[in-house]
């Protein structure tokens, strides 16, 4: 090979290696999607995909401590539903979980209502691949008045984040990767009036965009024969959101897919306290999340074949994170988490 060609190849290889390292250090969003790549291959039993309701409601370390199965939360703030299919594809490259849990809270939204940050939170955390490019192309195709330049900005995340050196110290704190992705919020909002949380059974036709995204996901799941459980988290919904989600549930059930709507589950709703368990109208706090995890983790264990890894040394990081969570909970709330668990268990959660 010509000497100059060799030199050019070496130069470019070093350049891309340096760019990769710089991206990792400076620009990768420190969220649970990014953290997902750090988990050892084929070590996850459940992958839970969704928006903030996923990481604020399901305490993965508690589920592990109780039943020994591992759960990754592929969830970011207001994560657009269109990305679900691509996150499953991404997961399949590294993991073969027994179950995917898909949160439907954002399934009725339209892409054009997002500012772009919601897309970037997830997309920028995904490693560079064809799947990532496909995700960008489909997501942006639903946004109106988008320029070619904006596509480029999404393809190459350093265009957006190159000046993050300014917050390098703060940025390196993996705030959302503590406790295996669970976000611990202790503050409480007393929910008033509570009748706004009564689930409305009416249905509204979906927009064309919602239909395309939903049917594409259903086709993918069926085609790949993937085990999926859809859930609708307990929270406040606008009337239109609620009615569109009912339509989505109907379509999923017609396609023989399982959906759990936590807003209509009587035994679950009986244990949720509107005075103590909400962080805000759309999110549970740590108390509500603990109740939800106790209920849902048990359901998953009873209904799916999930392995117990608690005796396996390779999974010790899950116990470590649970201990860290408990310690932080006790410190920040002046309460004892073990006692709280006992108290909740007495109420037969």
């Amino acid at each position, binding site marked *: 090979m010509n000497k*100059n060609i060799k030199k050019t190849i070496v*130069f470019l290889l070093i*350049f891309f290696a340096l760019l990769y390292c*710089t991206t990792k250090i400076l620009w990768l969003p420190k969220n649970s999607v990014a953290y997902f790549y750090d988990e050892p291959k084929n070590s996850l039993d459940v992958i839970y995909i969704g928006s903030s309701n996923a990481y604020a409601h399901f305490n993965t370390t508690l589920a592990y401590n109780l039943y020994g199965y591992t759960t990754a939360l592929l969830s970011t703030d207001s994560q657009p539903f269109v990305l679900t299919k691509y996150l499953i594809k991404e997961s399949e490259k590294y993991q073969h979980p027994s179950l995917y849990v898909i949160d439907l809270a954002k399934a009725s939204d339209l892409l054009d209502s997002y500012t772009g940050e919601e897309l970037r939170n997830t997309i920028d955390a995904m490693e560079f691949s064809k799947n990532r490019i496909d995700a960008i192309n489909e997501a942006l195709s639903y946004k109106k008045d988008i320029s*070619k330049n*904006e596509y*480029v*900005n999404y393809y190459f995340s350093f265009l*957006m984040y190159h*000046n993050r050196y300014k917050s390098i110290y703060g940025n390196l704190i993996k705030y959302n990767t503590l406790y295996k992705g669970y976000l611990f919020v202790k503050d409480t909002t007393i929910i008033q009036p509570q009748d706004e949380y009564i689930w409305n059974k009416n249905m509204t036709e979906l927009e064309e965009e919602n239909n395309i995204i939903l049917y594409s996901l259903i086709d993918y799941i069926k085609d790949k024969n993937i085990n999926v459980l859809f859930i609708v988290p307990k929270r406040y919904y606008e009337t239109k959101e609620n009615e569109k989600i009912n339509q989505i549930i109907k379509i999923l059930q017609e396609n023989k897919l399982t959906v759990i709507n936590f807003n209509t589950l009587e035994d679950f709703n009986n244990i949720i306290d509107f005075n103590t368990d909400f962080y805000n109208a759309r999110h549970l706090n740590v108390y509500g999340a603990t109740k939800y995890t106790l209920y849902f983790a048990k359901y998953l264990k009873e209904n799916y074949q999930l392995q117990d890894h608690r005796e396996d040394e390779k999974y010790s990081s899950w116990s470590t994170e649970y201990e860290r969570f408990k310690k932080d909970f006790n410190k920040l709330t002046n309460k004892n988490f073990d006692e709280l668990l006992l108290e909740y268990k007495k109420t037969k959660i």
Partner: protein
Amino acid sequence: MELTSFVFLMFCLLTILIYFIIPKKFQWFILLISSIVFLFWNNFNISTVIQALIVLIPTYILGIQIEKYSNTKKGKLFLIIGIVIILGQLAYLKYTNLFLTTAKHLLNLINIEYKFTPVYRDSLIGISYYSLIMISYLVDIYRGVCKSQKNIFKCALFMSYFPILSSGPFIRYNDINEDLYGKHEFDYTRMCNGLVRVLWGIFKVLVISERLSIFVNAVYGNLGSFNGIFIVAAAIFFTLQLYTNFSGSIDIIMGISEVIGIKLPENFSLPFFSKTITEFWRNWHITLGAWLRDYIFYPLQKSNIIQRLNKKCKEKFGKKIGKKIPLYLTMLIMWILIGVWHGGAYTYIIGSGLLQFLFIFLEDILEPLAKKINSKLHIDMNSIGYKIYQIIRTFLLFSFAMIFFRATSVSNAINIIRSIFNFDIPLFTNISLIELDIFDFIILIASLIVLFIIQLIARKGSVREKLSRKNIVFRWIILYALIFAIIIFGCYGPNYNPVAFIYKQF
């Protein structure tokens, strides 16, 4: 297509790839296709196509005719027709508002009320460049300096060679035709040298100029909110912004052309080391100065009117002073034209025209007095200290003139100058209006130091040549540092609103 945009760089990469892949006899044709795409990228409509043809077709036909009738009255007539067509269109598209504003002021002087609505006409990118380039082409044929181009497509390429359309430099047919239409082999060393220059240009624009513009825009946009020291700083920063933006874009253009194998004339030669404004303009926008010298200044000096004036002035004021008056008059005309070329507004005429003339005029007439004073005070004019004083003085004078260049109107420029003396506001009040944090300032100072060091090295010869003599490890470390400085510290991407290339508007 901004010169530092991803789209432009990909466009160049694609052009260069095809250029070296296809048979050599078609290479110039690829440049023509790319130039047409670039010319009409954002502005393709019937009006802009006609604009381009209005310059191309008459220039092509008249060029051949002028050659045929060179040194005859007919040849001169064809030349005048060509110049009138090209300048007529340029004036119509770019200077209508200047004419209307002037008419308004003149009519107001004789108490006639005249109001007009500013006219905004859609013009092609680089019109101010290609218009003057085509005039020089016709004049050079008339003077017998070059032959006319018989192929209209090749003529179109000379007019629209895409790298120079946004910021120059001015090219001459005789200097470039062999490179432009010639056959070029791919050359690895030339490619490396060209890319280094492109990177250095991008560094100047994205790391320095864009960052300076954040400071300048914040201060000039909130004049009443800042202490005078900040206004002075903004004036100095604007000069540096203008230089790094303009010379950076020239570096990108020269680097791309170098990769292709086309040698363009240099447009800057370390202007901030100049000791006088005269010397400064020999090193700043060199090709514009040379164009005006060769096609305006010398012909005017040799014109019958100036010759007659010269004779009369010598008779009336003596030989020494008499010969200076026509010279100053010619210079005044030339500087006004420089100002007009920069834009159809009085701010440009004052900032880059009249004030520059005034400084040069004062330098010339005060030189004997300055020498006398220095001699009496025993100041060594050859000392380093005195040279540094001259360099700083020249820089500050130019920065002062650039207040007009940057201002939105003459009254705005006067407001800026008044604000320099506003010391009532405590020094660091409203500093939050400047969207630069401590990191930006550190980067700015560090990159200006790098620029200064590179310029110091460049005084003693080509920096790229010096770099190429170093071992590969050192060379690559420097290159990676430059690339990653751009990637990490550059002001680009969705978080920044880039300032357009300042010279692109001309």
